[in-house]
C-alpha cells in the first residue's frame, strides 16, 4: 500500500493531472442529471437532491473500483498471460488475497472527495442531515456493495483464465457501471431486471442512497445483505475453479 503511494507520488504532475481528470469526469457525470432535472422537478419519485445522493454513492464506488479493485486485478490478467502467476501461487498466503492487494492508485481519493462534496451539497439542499441510524444502515450496505463489486470483478478476472483477452471485458464492465449513477427507479422491464439481479447496480448505488434518505424498506435491506453475501460466495467458488483450471506457464 505504501509502495503504491510512493510510486504515484514520484510522478507528481501525473498525480495532479489524473486527480483533475477524475473531477472533470464527475462534472461530466452530473450534466445529464442536471439536464433531466432541469425539465422535471421529480422523475419517478426522485427529486434532484435525492438523485444527487445516488451520484455521490456512484462516485464513491467508482473511486473504490478504479483506485483499489481494478488495478490489482488487471495485473492478475497480465500474470496469467505471461505465466508469472506461478510466483504468486507459490507464496504461503491466499492467492486471492495477494492478487487483490497488489496495487492501489491513490489519486482516486479525488473521486471520494468529490463524492463527499456531492453528499454535502445534496443534504444541504434537502435541509436536513441523515439520521445516525440511516447512516449506519448505509455503511453496512456500503460494505455489501464493495464486496459485490469485488465479487463481480473476481468473476471477470476468472474469465481471463479461459479467455485471456480480458481488457475488453473490463471496458464493458466500466460502461455498464456508468449506468449506476441513476436511481434504479427510472429503469423498467429488462434494464431494471439486469441492473437489480444480474449486474446489481441497484445494490451498489441506489440502495445505500435510499438508506441514507430513509426510504429503503427494511426487507429490501435484508435481502440485499443476503444477496450480496451470496454473490461473494459464488465468486469465491468460481475463483477456486478458475485456479484449478490454470495450468501455469510450462505445461
Amino acid at each position, binding site marked *: 500500500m505504501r509502495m503504491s503511494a510512493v510510486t504515484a507520488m514520484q510522478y507528481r504532475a*501525473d498525480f495532479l*493531472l*489524473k486527480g483533475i*481528470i477524475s473531477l*472533470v*469526469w464527475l462534472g*461530466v457525470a452530473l*450534466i*445529464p442529471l*442536471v*439536464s*433531466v432535472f*432541469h*425539465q*422535471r422537478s421529480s*422523475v*419517478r419519485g426522485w427529486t434532484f437532491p435525492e438523485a444527487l445522493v445516488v451520484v455521490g454513492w456512484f462516485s464513491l464506488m467508482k473511486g473504490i473500483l478504479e483506485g483499489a479493485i481494478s488495478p490489482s486485478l488487471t495485473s492478475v490478467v497480465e500474470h496469467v498471460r505471461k505465466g508469472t502467476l506461478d510466483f504468486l501461487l507459490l507464496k504461503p498466503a491466499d492467492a486471492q488475497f495477494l492478487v487483490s492487494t497488489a496495487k492501489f492508485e491513490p489519486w482516486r481519493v479525488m473521486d471520494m472527495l468529490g463524492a463527499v462534496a456531492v453528499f454535502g451539497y445534496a443534504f444541504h439542499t434537502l435541509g436536513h442531515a441523515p439520521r445516525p441510524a440511516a447512516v449506519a444502515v448505509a455503511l453496512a450496505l456500503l460494505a455489501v456493495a464493495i464486496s459485490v463489486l469485488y465479487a463481480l470483478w473476481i468473476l471477470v478476472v476468472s474469465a481471463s483464465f479461459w*479467455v485471456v*483477452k480480458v481488457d*475488453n*471485458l473490463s*471496458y*464493458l464492465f*466500466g*460502461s*455498464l457501471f*456508468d*449506468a449506476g449513477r*441513476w436511481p434504479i427507479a*427510472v*429503469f*423498467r422491464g429488462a*434494464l431494471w431486471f439486469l441492473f437489480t439481479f444480474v449486474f446489481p447496480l441497484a445494490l451498489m448505488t441506489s440502495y445505500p442512497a435510499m438508506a441514507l434518505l430513509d426510504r429503503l424498506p427494511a426487507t429490501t435491506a435484508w435481502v440485499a445483505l443476503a444477496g450480496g453475501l451470496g454473490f461473494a460466495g459464488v465468486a469465491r467458488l468460481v475463483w477456486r475453479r478458475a485456479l484449478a483450471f490454470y495450468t501455469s506457464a510450462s505445461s
Partner: protein
Amino acid sequence: MNAVGTSLTSLLGEARRAARAYPTLLRVGLSEVVAYRAEFVVWILTTNMPFVMLAIWHAVASDGPVGRFGQKDFIAYYLGGWVIRLLTSTWLVWELSMEIRAGTLSARLLRPLHPLFAFSAQHLAALPMRLLIVTPVVAALVWLAGDRLAIRDPRILLIFLGAMVGAWLLIFFVMVLLGSLSFFLESAVGVFEVWLALFAVMSGYLVPLELLPAWVGRIARLSPFDSMLAFPLETLIGLRSLGTALRDLLTQWAYVAVLAAAGLSVWRRGVRRYVAFGG
C-alpha cells in the same frame, strides 16, 4: 518551377499507388475484423450508454413531451445517434499511440504508402461488419419511429450523406491529431480520455443539445463536436430545417479542412522527431 513540377508528379504518383493498393488494403482490413469478431462484439456492447439514456428520457417524457421531444422522438434520437456513432467512430488513437510507443510504426513508415492511407483503409474495411451490426437497430428505428425520419426528402437525404462522410473524416483527423500527440507526450491516451468526456457531452451523444443547460448547449453548437454527431443526427430526424442543415454542412466541411491540416501537420512534425531519435 521545376521543383514544384517534380513534387507534383511525385505526389500524383503516390496518389496513384495509393489508389491501386486500396482494394487490397480493404480486403486485409475486412479479414482482420472477421478474425477479431469476439472483441468486436464486446466493443459494440460497451456502447450501451445511448440505450440507458433512452430509458431515462423515456421515463421523463411519460407524462408529456420535453421541449420538442416526445417519447417517440427520444427513440428516434438515441437509436439514430447510436447508429451514426457506430458508423463514424474509429479507435485509431489507441493503435497510433501503441505503435508509436512500441516502435512498430517504423515498419509502416518503410512501406511505399502513407501510413495514414493504410489506417484509413483498415477503418473503412470495418464498415460492412458495422453495417451488419446496426441493421437490426435501423429496422427497429424505422418500425418504432419511422415517421420521424426526415430523409424521405431527397434533398435532406443528400445533405445527410454528405454529413456522414464529413463526420467520418472529421473524427478520423481528430484521431490523427490526438494519436500524433504520442510522438511528444507520454500520456496522449489521457488527453484522449478528456476528449472523449467532452465529446459525450458536447456532441449530443448523451443528451440532445437543446436539452443541455443553455450555456453548455450554446458552446456545443459552435464547437466541432456538433458537426461530429449532433448535426447528422438532427438532420436525420428532421430537427434541422433544410436551410440550417445546408449552412451546417458548410461549417462541418470547413472544420474538416481545418482539422485535416492541423492533424497532418502534427503528424508530419511527429514523424520527423520519431525518426530523429528512433535512428
